[in-house]
């Protein structure tokens, strides 16, 4: 068979199977098994078990369940409650202050954890009732939590960056360093948007009444809420950036640290530990089984020669490399509406990264752009994790349509951030260059 035909069949079949609703992991793995079986016969199926053993004893991937566990412990540790209380005291009095505070707490949380769900669920439980109580409009209240929560995958540590790093062969430390400024830029854009919008339309985010505001003494006492998270951030990220620890080791230290945080807040008990273990297994298996299925599928690219074929195709295109980058981003955005970001990494990265290298771009830069793009994937319907998390939390009078409407301005801001990072690569590349030798 011709390579063109095989490549087309490969993808057409995968899309067909995924549309039928079979879980991504089994869909990708099953298609891989079928194609290998047809092309090479049953003996060649050992390629699948070989790939799976490779995922099973990968020490870098071991960081994934650890970061997930850490996020789940922090979610129930009471750290976010105190931090939000602090925000309420300091900036509750300005227009849109509680929503801005939500974004700031999400940013701090994102620097402690590597998943988007932890901050979204935590802030949905803490900040949403507070904002609704003070008559914030639901579009601002729901939107800032969904968008702020998604920062978790961009601001290091990040589980998605580990997946990208392992399968593109890039250093996780560099990717983490690269995510810092785009993450802060995005959080800054959210804050500026909320501040401007609420300044001109105060009914969207009214300041809290004067008599409920805190005095200076209370404000300063509340500051101790951020001590623990900041210590945790310094330990986890500091050890990674210094090269003292691998990301996996830093993740384990972070787990221990978050258990200590929970103990200090007197929240550490059997129920919390048990639930975090159960939930952690479920989330970790979801991610890593997609990696297993996806690695099986991706091994086909080189196996049938699809990679060389696509590379040749792109090289022959008579267009500017930046147009190719733009095309990739658009296709990632579309995939992001439909699919889980883990699956998107596994399907696209083994193809995109060799092309990026061929065109002479920096794969770290592209990796962070990819993550910024996936920020949108968490928010865009019909498939967006943060939409599902929000739907499970919001009171009954907020419909799915309200949630969809609330994220529109934030997705636009994320798109702006993506474009800024494409036009000014230094935003991403400056920190990895000075931090990591």
């Amino acid at each position, binding site marked *: 068979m011709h390579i063109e035909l095989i490549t087309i069949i490969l993808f057409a079949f995968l899309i067909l199977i995924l549309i039928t609703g*079979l*879980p991504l992991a089994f869909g990708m793995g099953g298609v891989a098994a079928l194609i290998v079986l047809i092309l090479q016969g049953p003996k060649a199926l050992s390629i699948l078990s070989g790939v799976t053993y490779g995922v*099973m004893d990968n020490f870098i991937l071991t960081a994934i369940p*650890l970061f997930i566990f850490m996020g789940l412990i922090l979610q129930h540790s009471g750290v976010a409650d105190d931090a939000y209380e602090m925000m309420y005291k300091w900036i509750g009095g300005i227009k849109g202050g509680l929503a801005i505070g939500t974004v700031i707490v999400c940013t701090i949380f994102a620097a402690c954890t590597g998943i988007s769900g932890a901050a979204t669920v935590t802030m949905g439980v803490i900040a949403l009732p507070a904002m609704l109580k003070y008559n914030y409009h639901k579009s601002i209240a729901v939107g800032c939590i969904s968008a702020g929560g998604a920062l978790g995958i961009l601001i290091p540590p990040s589980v998605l960056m580990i997946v990208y790093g392992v399968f593109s062969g890039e250093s996780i430390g560099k990717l983490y360093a690269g995510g810092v400024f785009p993450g802060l830029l995005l959080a800054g854009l959210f804050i500026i948007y909320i501040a401007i919008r609420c300044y001109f339309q105060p009914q969207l985010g009214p300041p809290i009444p004067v008599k409920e505001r805190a005095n200076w003494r209370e404000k300063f006492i509340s500051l101790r809420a951020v001590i623990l998270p900041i210590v945790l951030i310094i330990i986890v990220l500091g050890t990674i950036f210094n090269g003292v620890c691998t990301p996996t080791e830093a993740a*384990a230290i972070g787990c*221990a640290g978050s258990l200590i945080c929970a103990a200090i807040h007197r929240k550490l008990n059997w129920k919390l530990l048990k639930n975090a273990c159960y939930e952690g297994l479920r989330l970790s298996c*979801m991610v890593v089984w997609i990696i297993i299925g996806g690695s099986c599928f991706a091994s086909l690219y080189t196996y049938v020669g699809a990679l060389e074929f696509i590379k040749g195709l792109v090289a022959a295109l008579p267009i500017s490399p930046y147009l190719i980058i733009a095309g990739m981003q658009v296709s990632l955005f579309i995939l992001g509406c439909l699919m889980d970001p883990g699956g998107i990494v596994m399907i696209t990265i083994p193809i995109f990264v060799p092309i990026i290298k061929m065109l002479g771009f920096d794969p770290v830069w592209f990796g962070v752009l990819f993550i910024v793009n996936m920020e949108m994937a968490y928010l865009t319907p019909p498939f967006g994790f943060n939409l599902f998390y929000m739907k499970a939390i919001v009171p009954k009078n907020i419909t799915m349509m309200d949630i969809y409407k609330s994220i529109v301005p934030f997705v636009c801001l994320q798109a702006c951030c993506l474009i800024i990072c494409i036009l000014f690569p230094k935003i991403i590349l400056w920190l990895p260059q000075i931090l990591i030798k």
Partner: protein
Amino acid sequence: MNSLLFLIDEISKWTGRVVSFLIVILTFLICYEVIARYLLNRPTIWVHESSSMLFGAYIILGGAYTLYMGGHVNMDVVYGRLLPKKKALIDVFTFWIFLLFCGSLIWMGGDSAWRSLKNFEHSGSLWNPPIYPFKLVLPLGVFLLFLQGLAKFIRDLMVIFKERL
């Protein structure tokens, strides 16, 4: 039949619950390594390898639990809008893809585990632990996953044929 399905569910649930605590062991193992390296100046030779193996076991043995909890994500743009009976009909077809994936891993994983066991294979590193228990995890874990998938398949058939009766 219902008691068989119940049994499969219970197996998945309890292996998952037990395995889920491996993450706490992993945390302490790796923290111990960091402490041993920087505070005691005595890096271990065994943490790196054993924690990778524990990670593999954690993920593979947790697959069935995750399926039982409905935790494996899918694309539900089209599928999510279908009626339960149509979903069941489609699932009965896609089960064969799932079976092919599980079957390959059980067969080929079992094959390499068997060879490893026959030779009492060791990893060949400085620590040099036996590697066959780790290799056995793959066919075992995927078999549990397959059982949970089979339970879903039987349930789908029940949905389809009950409607017809």
